[in-house]
């Protein structure tokens, strides 16, 4: 089946008083219908900037190159008019902080209804009816009453559900979720993830889930892209990447996470140093200063993203373990 969203060679650069900062390089991704891809990385890895670029939401000092096609529509470099025709209808996004991404002085009903009136030409009364259905779909309790409330009257979890309702209003082909549960309690995070998983299953929606948490990815994603220093370092089926990582960074990231199902207090295998500043990326492989397996070659020559057997890894010395299930 053809991809619903196809990103090719995306690059994002920011011009700053200190020079040009490369935030994203050579980012390519094909999103299949009904598929969820997790984008994982730490601060500055470029995971959010990649998809803000796709949405046309980058800061004014950014320049973008490459291509991102939603079906037949090219998103990059297109004018605002053309973008607005797809944003909020075929392509929707939810953000980390549901308080700052909702408009504080508009009632819930008007925020959900906005895109319905704009894109679908619904009347106010029809939009209200549809907004109520959407609130029920995202399992907002007491939905009727919530319609006329303002964002500050809702809890964090409720606000994120409202954000999801807004995103779903026009039945988008692709939903981009940028750290949708990071600001929430684990219990509420689990509820929101269960809701997203259900929406994906029942509506066949394609989803991009940007997160720093490999546990979140494990629960809902089909594939995972691991980013480091603005580039994809590993990419493949979630099972392959999480159970048999080939990139030393992916493996180190997994090993550094304390697991709730792990007995005992053996020290965690921390990764030394810190994620690189995109202004001062190391030469060669950006991970080499922190990599336990690094050799001279890694400091001089940047590894290409090699595709083999349905997965991709950018490393001169990938970890190969014969996988026996």
């Amino acid at each position, binding site marked *: 089946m053809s991809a619903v969203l196809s990103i090719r060679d995306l690059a994002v650069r920011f011009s700053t008083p200190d020079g040009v900062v490369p935030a994203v390089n050579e980012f390519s991704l094909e999103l299949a219908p009904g598929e969820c891809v997790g984008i994982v990385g*730490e*601060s500055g890895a470029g995971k959010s900037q990649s998809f803000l670029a796709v949405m046309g939401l980058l800061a004014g000092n950014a320049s973008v190159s490459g291509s991102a096609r939603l079906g037949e529509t090219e998103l990059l470099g297109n004018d605002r008019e053309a973008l607005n025709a797809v944003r909020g209808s075929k392509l929707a996004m939810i953000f980390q902080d549901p308080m700052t991404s909702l408009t504080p002085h508009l009632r819930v009903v008007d925020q959900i209804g906005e895109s319905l009136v704009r894109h679908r030409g619904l009347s106010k009364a029809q939009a209200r009816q549809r907004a109520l259905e959407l609130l029920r779909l995202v399992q907002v*309790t007491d939905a009727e009453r919530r319609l006329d409330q303002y964002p500050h009257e809702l*809890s*964090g*979890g*409720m606000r994120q559900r409202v954000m999801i309702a807004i995103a779903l209003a026009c039945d988008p082909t692709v939903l981009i979720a940028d750290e949708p549960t990071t600001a929430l*309690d*684990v*219990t*509420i*995070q*689990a*509820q929101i*993830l*269960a809701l997203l*998983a259900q929406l994906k299953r029942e509506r066949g929606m394609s989803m991009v889930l940007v997160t*720093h*948490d*490999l*546990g*979140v*990815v*494990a*629960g*809902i994603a089909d594939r995972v892209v691991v980013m480091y220093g603005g580039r994809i370092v590993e990419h493949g089926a*979630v*099972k392959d990447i*999480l*159970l048999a990582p080939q990139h030393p960074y992916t493996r*180190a*990231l*997994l090993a*550094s*996470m*304390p*697991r*709730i*199902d*792990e*007995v005992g*207090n053996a*020290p*965690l*295998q*921390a*990764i*030394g140093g*810190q*994620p690189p500043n995109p202004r001062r990326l190391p030469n060669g492989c950006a991970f080499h200063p*922190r990599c336990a397996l690094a050799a001279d070659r890694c400091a001089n020559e940047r590894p290409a993203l090699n595709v083999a057997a349905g997965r991709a890894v950018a490393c001169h010395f990938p970890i190969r373990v014969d996988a026996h299930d």
Partner: protein
Amino acid sequence: MTEPLLRIRNLRVWFPVGTALFGKPAQLRAVDGVDFDLQAGEALGIVGESGCGKSTLARAILRLVPSTAGQIVWMGQSIEGWSNRQVRPLRRDLQIVFQDPLASLDPRMTVGEIVAEPLRVHAPKLSRAERRERVADILRRVGLSPDVINRYPHEFSGGQCQRIGIARAMVLRPKLLVCDEPVSALDVSIQAQIVNLLQDLKRDFGMSILFVSHNLAVVRKLCERVLVLYLGKPMELAPTEMLYSDPRHPYTRGLLAAVPIPDPAVQPLRLGTALGGELPSPLSPPSGCVFRTRCPMAEPQCAATAPTFDEVSKAHQVACWRWREK
């Protein structure tokens, strides 16, 4: 048994809220009847959702917020009614590390001044050279080079700032270190560094730790015992391995089930077991057991009477009418 370092008995912290024109303001019961003992050298985790009272409890113990009722016994002395002046000498033994590493460091002070400040206040007799030596020593201990003393906090990453905050707290060799979500604002790879550092410091200096966190996986690594709070009330208190392997309170089970595991073979199934609902308003907590509105096991008796804090075993206590059922 030896006197515990810290003994908390029936501690309540209520905040008056709202401005009823006539009559009394409502009381927000942030902490409502907490008991525990903390032994020297022990790490106790305090966990629960936002609004469960875990940070308020920690701050009340440090006397950063006043307690409403109950006892805080520090090394045999009841300190809950003490004035700030009386408490001040105790502060050298009671130190805290905050969540936001950069915001908790004064941007106008150098790292050297920040780490030396507790010494200036609590050990004014130290000579300049001795103070410098103590600062250099603790900086090395937390994994920073002593060369950083002339630099400012904004020059450091989040993980390094947290190391500076830990150095400031540890420079006096406190008997109790309170950590309020110390790794929550950090990148995943940096969290592990800080958790390991706290583990090392605890082993080497033998201080007690009150570790306030919503991250149950980190708590499992670091703490010997765990206290689970909900709406200011204790739900379960148990040695760590007992709590994680045999949780008796439905809330504890819900919290544990909500933590994602990075294994695609098990995690999708866990999503279906999420605890429903949200924390009710602490201004009008449910009658009886405060957890009953979200509890999958609730029955009429739970609405009528609050459960007592029962002993499952000597070390394991739980506040649930149905803890005997699995």
